[in-house]
């Protein structure tokens, strides 16, 4: 029986039929999706913090409005994704609990600090850019609610990327101080942003199954290469450089070669030792704990109001 369902399920996947929440699915498929979608949702929410840092310091009112709208978009992405995960039978509160207790992960990129205004440009360009590279294929994810959430998310992410690029373009045409501010930010964010695609394929054990289930469509290394190829061209338009002396066009491969990634740093950050892991988690926990009385008040009020309404009706 189990085997038949499993075979039937895989057959649907192979024929590109979307899986919907009420459909039968293997428990491991459900768990993998919950893990991936909630991680993704947490990344959106934690990702608000490094950029949120600069809302009050944005250098013009126009930039302030754009940045505020962008960070608000990320909150919206979190919302769509939490909702998509909830269709798999987990509540938002449970997911928060996993985040706050450190059991759930989020994208390690957000554990790096935003030190200058140029970081806001670089995050839009590289971090949202890498996110798009990862997420566009997810619009065809086999799980319906996830795929649909990603369609909405991707539209906004490409705006973010253009805005980030535009910040850098403005800096590149600015003063010497602005140009070095931008180059410095690129130097700091480049390596962490190419780590966003995750470990090398041979060290990414879950990938094979995820590809078979069409939760994932491309391998980490494929996406990373694609991103590097695109970015190596874009940086020329900006007149800046990427901090990798081994970055070279390889005619035979039709791709850019790149230098060795410091995977030790990657695993250290994942394990909680990045420059801002503690602050990020503390900020989220603080918001949640200090919001406790607000949520309690709102639900107490709703209860009272419903009671009053039923009394009136009776």
């Amino acid at each position, binding site marked *: 029986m189990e085997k038949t369902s499993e075979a039937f399920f895989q057959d649907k996947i192979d024929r590109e039929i979307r899986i919907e929440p009420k459909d039968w699915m293997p428990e491991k498929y459900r768990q993998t999706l919950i893990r991936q979608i909630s991680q993704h949702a947490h990344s959106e929410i934690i990702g608000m913090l490094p950029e949120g840092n600069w809302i009050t*310091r944005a250098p013009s*009112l126009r930039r302030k409005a754009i940045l505020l709208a962008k960070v608000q978009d990320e*909150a919206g992405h979190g919302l769509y994704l939490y909702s998509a995960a909830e269709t798999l039978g987990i509540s938002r509160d449970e997911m928060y609990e996993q985040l706050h207790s450190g059991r759930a992960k989020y994208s390690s990129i957000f554990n790096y600090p935003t030190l200058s205004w140029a970081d806001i440009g670089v995050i839009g360009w590289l971090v949202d850019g890498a996110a798009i590279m990862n997420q566009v294929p997810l619009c065809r994810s086999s799980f319906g609610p996830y795929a649909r959430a990603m369609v909405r998310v991707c539209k906004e992410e490409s705006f973010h990327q253009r805005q980030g690029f535009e910040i850098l373009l*403005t800096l590149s045409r600015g003063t010497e101080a602005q140009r070095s501010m931008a180059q410095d930010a690129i130097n700091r964010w480049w390596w962490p942003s190419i780590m966003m695609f995750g470990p090398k394929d041979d060290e990414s054990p879950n990938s094979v199954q995820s590809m078979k289930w069409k939760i994932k469509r491309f391998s980490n290394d494929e996406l990373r290469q694609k991103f590097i190829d695109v970015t190596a061209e874009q940086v020329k338009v900006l007149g800046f450089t990427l901090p990798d002396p081994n970055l070279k066009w390889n005619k035979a491969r039709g791709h850019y070669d790149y230098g060795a990634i410091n995977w030790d740093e990657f695993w250290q950050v994942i394990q909680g030792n990045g420059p801002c892991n503690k602050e990020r988690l503390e*900020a989220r926990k603080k918001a949640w704990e200090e919001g406790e009385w*607000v949520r309690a*008040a709102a639900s107490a009020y709703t209860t009272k109001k419903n009671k009053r309404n039923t009394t009136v009706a009776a």
Partner: protein
Amino acid sequence: MNKTQQFNQLLNLADNALIIGHRCSEWCGHGPVLEQDIAISNIALDYIGQARNFYQAAATLINEDPEMLTGFVLPATEDSLAYLRDQREFRNHLITELPNGDWAVTTLRIFLFSAYQYFLYTQLKDSGDLSVNAIAEKALKEVTYHVKWSADWVIRLGDGTEESNRRIRHAVDHLWAYTGELFLQESELQQQWLQKVQLVFEEAGLVIPEKTWMHQGGTSGNHTEHLGFILAEMQFLQRAYPGSQW
């Protein structure tokens, strides 16, 4: 109203929106519920937008008549007005610059202030000043929502739990003394505002404080200590890298 008065009024409208918008934006990423985080960021965005419109109108006015007032960077722009004036030159009401405090102070401040804006913009949209009419009309739509959103919170907190009731009462005690400054001249406005506040307070189980001392000074540039810190943060890049394009 002569041009100087008109200019000062525009600055007051713009500064109010910018500074309360700045405070609202501080919540972005730190709200008590994700949906409310989005809501208050949205309100912040509306305010920044209003500030920009009023600053642009003010800039046009002073650029047309640069002799009008001294001490402004010319030609004026929305950014020169927001980023290159010091706190003595800001014309916002004190209530907008107070720290956010908790969610009770935050939402009550937005309620008290946006209710004031609601009636003020209602007047301004039909006033003789064409540059202000259109801005006020658009802003009125936004502010209508701000009033509703914040009034809902004041009621929820007032009629929620014991703790939320205690906190919102404390917020009333704290903020009330900053509401007098909103009505130095316009008394009809004050009546309308008071009625609205009364209505919402009743539903929230709150009482309007007895006559108390009212702080004032914002519109003449005598601010609390808080504004200086807001500006230090907000203006940092423009001050550290003068004359740059961003």
